[in-house]
């Protein structure tokens, strides 16, 4: 169901979701022809990240993982700067020093991205701790996947966050559902003995909720409650958002296994290819959101196509910008190690 928000805001969220989707698809296309190293895409999870992060304000911080592109775009980071960074260019967000795994934009509330699983959790607690100490009305969000819950750092983080009633939101994007061919201990998989991920939170007395990550109303409401709780001194919250892992994310490198997204799938189901019918018809949260907007009369197919066309053009431009940008000078490798 749709969040209880004004129509223009919902449409804006659709736009953001489409921009993320087209960015990732363009990147995968780029990777086919250019050497860009390993990267991870957010396809299929947009319906979680966009409504959740839309509730943050300036000054709030979010710490994310190797699967960060969607989170950054959701908070307004320039796709051109991101693409350039992913390609290691001097015009990138981090001037080529970070790459995809460490995309950062402090101005947009992403101090850093960590690629070690569980790595951002203690740091997110740390920001929340600082906000408490400095008396700032800000929230810290830890964005991570189900895998991070296996790390000792998770256990230590939730314990300390609970002890301090820190204003931190643990948003776990569990994209392990129905992964084809997944066996226990197979990478990537959820190798956790807990029956439910929220069971890990219960001993600490932290409110925890598990929801369908493609249900944008559920995401919005859970996140709104968590933000309000944090800002009012009520301490941490845990949200598990479940999605089915996009088929293209199952191989080691992202591949357009399902083909590019066709927004017309949302209003013309006949177009959906049989081979990936389940994904397009029932599992992709972006299409679900679009269908709901259409069904509520908040958008026409024509509007959707127009937004999509714009998004494609923007992301094509971002990739071109990145390709045409220069690499940094080698001397720059030595800069900014210290103050």
């Amino acid at each position, binding site marked *: 169901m749709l969040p209880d928000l004004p129509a223009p805001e919902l449409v804006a969220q659709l736009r953001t979701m489409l921009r993320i989707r087209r960015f990732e698809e363009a990147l995968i296309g780029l990777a086919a022809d250019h050497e860009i190293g390993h990267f991870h895409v957010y396809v299929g999870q947009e319906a979680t990240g966009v409504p959740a992060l839309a509730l943050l304000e300036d000054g709030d*911080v979010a*710490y994310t993982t190797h699967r960060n592109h969607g989170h950054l775009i959701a908070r307004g980071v320039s796709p051109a700067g991101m693409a350039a960074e992913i390609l290691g260019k001097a015009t990138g967000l*981090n*001037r080529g*020093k*970070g790459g995809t795994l*460490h995309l*950062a*934009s*402090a101005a947009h509330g992403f*101090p*850093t991205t*960590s690629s*070690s699983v569980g*790595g951002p*959790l*203690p*740091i*997110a*607690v*740390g*920001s*929340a*701790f*600082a*906000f408490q*100490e*400095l008396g700032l009305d800000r929230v*810290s969000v830890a964005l991570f996947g189900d895998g991070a819950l296996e790390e*000792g*750092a998770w256990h*230590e*983080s939730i*314990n*300390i966050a609970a*002890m301090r009633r820190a204003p931190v939101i643990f948003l776990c994007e569990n994209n392990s559902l129905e992964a084809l061919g997944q066996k226990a201990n197979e990478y990537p998989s959820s190798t956790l003995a807990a029956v439910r991920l929220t069971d890990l939170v219960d001993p600490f007395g932290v409110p925890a909720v598990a929801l369908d990550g493609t249900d944008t109303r559920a995401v919005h409401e859970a996140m709104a409650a968590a933000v309000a709780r944090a800002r009012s001194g009520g301490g941490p919250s845990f949200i598990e958002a479940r999605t089915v892992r996009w088929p293209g994310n199952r191989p080691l490198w992202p591949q357009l296994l399902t083909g590019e997204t066709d927004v017309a799938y949302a209003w013309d189901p006949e177009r959906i290819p049989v081979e990936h019918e389940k994904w397009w018809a029932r599992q992709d949260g972006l299409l679900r959101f679009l269908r709901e907007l259409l069904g509520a009369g908040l958008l026409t197919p024509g509007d959707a196509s127009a937004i999509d066309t714009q998004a494609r053009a923007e992301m094509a431009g971002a990739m071109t910008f990145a390709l045409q940008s220069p690499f940094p000078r080698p001397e720059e490798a030595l*800069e*900014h*190690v*210290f*103050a």
Partner: protein
Amino acid sequence: MSTLRFIDAIRNGLDIEMRRDPSVVVLGEDVTYGGPFGATKGLAEAHGSRIRDTPISEATVVGLAVGAAVSGLRPVVEIMYIDFITLAMDQLVNHGAKLRYMTNGLLRAPMVIRAQGGARGSMGAHHSQSLEAWFGHLPGMTVVAPSTPADAQGLLQAAIRSDDPVLYLEHRGLYWQKGEVPDEDDRVVVPIGKAIVRRPGSDLTIVSWSHMMGAALDAADGLAGDGIEAEVIDLRSLLPFDMDTLLASVGRTGRLVVAHEAVTRGGMGAEIAAQVQERAWAELAAPVARVGAPFVPPPFAPELERAFVRDADAIIAAARHVLDTPARGGTPTPSPEPVEA
């Protein structure tokens, strides 16, 4: 000037910086109680909740310190024994030390990790290591190791004021030693990256740091009895370290002995020796000699621990060796140090 014990100088430095800068907070196990050695004793009464006890969660506490540091605090984390820093390696190495670089200067992580280490009191292999070489090998890290109360306070204050993550190394064998400490702020703060000549001399240079400085100075006294004048340099900062002072000294003496408590193999002495021979080859009359622990974990029994931690005699033997080695062209005599794989 005040006469303070090393441990009290640490507390003094913390107290002064906490009064000066409200963003400084202290985290660690049992720190409100004072910690196992009393370094933070009394600070909780003075600074309330800015001194916080933490559970036994080195990884998360160090990571938390990193997150707090990028968000406006200046945390000082106490790692009770440097051996336990291993639990926090991901947070410190992958995050704390690399943030500035990865974000190309958008971010900084001003934090201090105080870690006590070294072999003293037969505490065995998990409470006795000297691990500075790991962090001297880490781009983005600053590493300091004071040997006097004045430097303990001065370097701690400098470390807290630094905008980079600093590993501040303490040795519990120094904690009860007394020394003069300036009272004025502009005299007490010791610049990071600056060594100091503790004892001038012209026959050879001995460089050391932390607890080993005592043995280095004792060795110099022993050598003086035989008319050999050793120049003894206290490095104080290990990363960055003061090559200029070292090279100026070696330029005059032509011979260098590096002494540290950590194991010789892969120790900071290796880096110093490599740099000196690269840059002062013409001035050197003998290979650089290193005195360090044998390549074993710190053993428990007192006899073994005494054999493990090198002393003034070992430094004197190394000094004699570099003095006896014939000048360039002759066959070097075998080093008194054991040969290891």
